[in-house]
């Protein structure tokens, strides 16, 4: 097996897993489409990274943080619904990105390209995935309890705002990582589809979150294998594998 292919496989496997795990929290908090919207918000950073030849995730992350701060500031200022403001920020981001992006790079920005990751990129991604997953694991039950009843969580001395901030930062990191694998356009599916599939068969929270993690990792690994065999782009293949696993999970839905 080629080393390059192994790097792609490892990177995808870890990012897919942490994205799935995060997705189980995001669906519970009814924030499933946030991943999708943020994928688009990151596009100007992705464009700059592609033009100047540095890591796509590195370009995406600061733009994501800037986008989240902007949405938050607009919300404080206008009290308009968050989704409307997110819509404004993400379409503006797409517009800016398309002015910057050379035509040859458009498809990489939109559907990702995992085939060229190097050793350092793989190593950094794996470490970031593990750290983010550990953080999410630590805050998981607190976020779920705060989502059930914020008052109850506060009485239990859970600092809800602090945990929400950590949670949002984790989303920004995972979206930045995911864009490398499936691009801006498809990133949303990496958090939604595995978690939705897991929810169809999960009887409890750990089956749900770890189910999503396993399905996320599996989708990426199988998608990248299919890319190797077919020479079709990896991003769409990963998402289609995840969608197929979601369809399979429907069989379990009736039984639980």
């Amino acid at each position: 097996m080629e080393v390059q292919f192994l790097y792609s496989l490892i990177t995808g496997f870890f990012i897919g897993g942490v994205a799935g795990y995060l997705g189980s929290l995001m669906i519970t908090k009814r924030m499933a489409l946030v991943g999708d919207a943020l994928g688009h918000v990151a596009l100007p950073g992705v464009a700059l990274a592609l033009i100047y030849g540095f890591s796509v995730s590195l370009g995406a992350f600061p733009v994501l943080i800037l986008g989240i701060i902007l949405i938050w500031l607009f919300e404080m200022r206008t009290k308009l619904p968050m989704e409307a403001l997110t819509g404004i920020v993400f379409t503006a981001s797409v517009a800016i990105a398309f002015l910057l992006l050379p035509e040859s790079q458009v498809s990489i920005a939109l559907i990702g390209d995992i085939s060229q990751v190097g050793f350092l990129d793989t190593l950094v991604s794996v470490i970031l995935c593990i750290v983010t997953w550990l953080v999410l694991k630590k805050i998981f039950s607190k976020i779920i309890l705060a989502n059930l009843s914020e008052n109850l969580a506060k009485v239990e001395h859970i600092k809800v705002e602090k945990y929400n901030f950590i949670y949002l930062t984790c989303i920004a990191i995972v979206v930045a990582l995911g864009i490398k694998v499936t691009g801006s356009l498809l990133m949303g599916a990496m958090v939604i589809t595995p978690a939705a599939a897991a929810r169809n068969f999960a009887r409890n929270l750990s089956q749900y979150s770890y189910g999503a993690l396993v399905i996320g990792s599996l989708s990426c690994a199988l998608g990248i294998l299919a890319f190797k065999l077919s020479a079709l782009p990896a991003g769409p293949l990963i998402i289609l594998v995840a969608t197929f696993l979601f369809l399979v999970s429907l069989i379990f839905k009736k039984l639980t």
Partner: protein
Amino acid sequence: MKNNLILEVRNLNVELGGEKILEDLSFDLGNKEILVILGPNGAGKSVLLRTLLGLHSFTGQIQWQENVHIAYVPESFDVSPGLPLSVKEFFQFKKTDSQKIIKSLQCVGIMGFSKFLEKRLGTLSSGQLRRALIAWALVDKPDVILLDEPMVGIDIHGRETIYDSLVKFWQKKNQTIILVSHEIGEVCKKANKVLALNKRKLFYGKPKEIITPQNLAKIYGSTISV
């Protein structure tokens, strides 16, 4: 604060959205006492509980005994049936072990633990969910427990079981209880103090002195018999 007091409230005022909800409220609570808060809808009973818990801003003084461990049973608590959260996992949010979970479930009259613990929280009936919520509050042995209309959705037989076990629990574990309730009969007999409220303090004292037909008419605005 006096030694035997667990809570002292002086001149408490709470405003929410420009509206005065509580005005100049003062009362106190000793260790191991049960306080029942009565009042019509909109009297500010739930706001009072949440203010005591530090969830609303206020003027005046609320002083709890140092390092007191408080538990809370909120009035409304909805769980989506689709959320794959088992009863056991809900209890494990509190880092507790199975023995303690089973004990606190016994307190609220739930039997058949193993099956109950595997159930999804969102699929419990409203009565079962209330019981689970009370048990959840009890599980890490709080010094004080604040309950907001805890018996909503629980049948009469169930109420007796729960109140009886709560009182037993209280006697054994030295718990202080603050209870918001609409029920005047069974509950108040077990209380040490009753606070009748309608934005301001209407009556405050021993149940025997407070729960009279004349007072109840003043509290609720019509004649009510016990």
